[in-house]
């Protein structure tokens, strides 16, 4: 087990290093002068040279990369070209909004997936199953930006139930926070919920076909208890993996949903950084996304072993 964890940690570190190289390379390839873009046309040559110097942009590329990565390891992600704030403070500032949206969306996804997936697995090829399959297909296919706009049109515009955009911090105004969160969370949660529905269905189906379930039924256990103790418990295992991937995806800033609802999260931060050629901000944000992705995957794999005693990581990959 320890060996496995170590190997996975090393692998994740290697991928993270690759991501850092990739993101750095992308930024080198983006045409245009970031300092010029940040200062505008009115800056004096002295200010321009000073900012270039301070940002280390005149150093060789390899030196720039090594500087950046060693500081990043110490938690220093540099300073935004645009605002002059430190990248870490920008990220920390945006984190609550992204966390709120991710948690809200995963709750929505679970509320869709668990009942719908379980019901359709319990009655395969029934109208319920058919409805669930179609709903999850639709949820997967609906463009989130369109759904968001339609929600704004109907629930913010016509009905006026929810605000159409913006974010209120939880600690400032919990009611306003929830109120603002509803539409974006549903918009972001539907596609994850649709993916999860299919996994709940297939893992419940698989769990139902196992011998111990048949035995439990045969010895007269109540259907509800069989479902709870034997089916759902076992179905949890594969579900955790996909759920984890979905959570990682939601945490990496749902760019489009944040864009539609003017949600001040990490997705918007990264998107704006691309448009502004704000290298340090984009590098920091993407590195964080990749880190989240890898950590979530690692945790999921380890959780897997805890939930399913048959899996051991003693040997093999």
């Amino acid at each position: 087990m320890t060996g496995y964890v170590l190997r996975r940690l090393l692998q994740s570190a290697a991928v993270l290093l690759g991501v850092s190289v990739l993101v750095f390379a992308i930024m080198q390839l983006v045409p245009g002068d970031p300092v010029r873009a940040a200062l505008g046309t009115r800056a004096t040559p002295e200010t321009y040279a000073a900012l270039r110097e301070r940002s280390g942009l005149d150093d060789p590329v390899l030196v720039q990369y090594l500087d950046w990565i060693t500081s990043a390891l110490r938690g220093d992600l540099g300073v935004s070209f645009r605002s002059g704030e430190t990248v870490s403070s920008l990220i920390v500032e945006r984190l609550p909004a992204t966390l709120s949206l991710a948690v809200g969306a995963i709750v929505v996804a679970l509320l869709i997936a668990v009942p719908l997936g379980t019901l359709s697995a319990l009655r395969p090829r029934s109208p319920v199953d058919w409805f669930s399959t179609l709903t999850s297909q639709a949820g997967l296919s609906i463009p989130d930006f369109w759904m968001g706009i339609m929600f704004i049109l109907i629930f913010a515009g016509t009905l006026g139930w929810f605000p159409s955009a913006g974010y209120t911090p939880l600690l400032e105004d919990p009611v306003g926070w929830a109120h603002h969160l509803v539409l974006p969370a549903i918009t972001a949660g539907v596609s994850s919920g649709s993916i999860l529905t299919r996994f709940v269905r297939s893992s419940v189906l698989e769990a139902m076909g196992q011998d111990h379930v048949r035995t439990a039924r045969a010895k007269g256990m109540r259907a509800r208890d069989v479902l709870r103790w034997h089916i759902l418990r076992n179905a949890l295992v594969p579900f955790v993996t996909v759920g984890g991937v979905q959570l990682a995806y939601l945490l990496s800033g749902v760019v489009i949903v944040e864009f539609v609802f003017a949600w001040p999260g990490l997705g918007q931060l990264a998107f704006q950084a691309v448009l502004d050629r704000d290298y340090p901000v984009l590098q920091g944000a993407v590195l964080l996304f990749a880190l989240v992705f890898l950590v979530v995957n690692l945790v999921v794999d380890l959780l897997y072993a805890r939930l399913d005693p048959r899996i051991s990581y003693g040997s093999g990959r």
Partner: protein
Amino acid sequence: MSAGERADTLPSTAPHRPRWVETLVLLARSPMAVASGLVLTAVVAAALLAGRISPHDPVEPSVDDRLQAPSGEHWFGTDELGRDVFSRVLAGAEVSLRVGAVAVGISLAAGVLIGLLAGYYRRWVDDVLMRVMDVVFAFPALLMAIAVLAILGRGSTNAMIAIGIVYTPIFARITRASVLSVREEVYVRAARSAGAGDVRIVARHVLPNVTAPIIVQTSVSLAFAILSEAALSFVGLGTQPPDPSWGRMLSEGRGFLEQAWWMAVFPGAAIFLTVLAFNVLGDVLRDVLDPRQRAAMKGTAKGSGG
């Protein structure tokens, strides 16, 4: 067809129809597949014939007709420049399909090649290629596409490349997994010991056996590529005006939600239906191309069809 009839006289043996004909027959028996086939036919027809069948010019502004609600003259209404939304939705089909098809073509070619190399040669080739794929995969997909567009510049051609890069790893992974499972099969080893070269083995024995999951992935990827193009155009990085693109139309419509709901509703519905059709088709294909499911489907078909 004649092969099928002959086979019917021999009830105990399976009909010797070519595999793809049988696949089509199974697809035609699925209402879901037929429905999505119809939708896709309509979309392709719109893409090919938009110039001839659209009732109005999709690009030319007509100030007198600004922001008109749907009517007999303008089925989907008009936009803020007086252009007919229906004609623009028809023309948008062409952009969406072209970007989707080229993008998936890129990921298919690159991904299958990478997957074949990694799965067939294993060792360091596998390690290097698949770790690179992991890195691309660890990048949030849309952000990756946005970053690629930041390098290459905006526009639909670059959007194809960006989307193509983003969806390459998934093809590589699927191909590699399938190759790993067939490369140790007896017939592959037999071909190798008979002196067949790598290229021949891959072309004759490995590729045909990995096509099923790749076909399924292609259909599903077309759905996601069309969604991605719409999303990129929606944030202003994909197709540029005045070309009508569904995503672009949606972002224009967003500014007129209160006055002209139709500007946002119809292009979005077009994206939704097209993507849904590709997804449903991919799903049915997955069942039809899976040998176990296939046998079951043929069984039920025999029972009911006679």
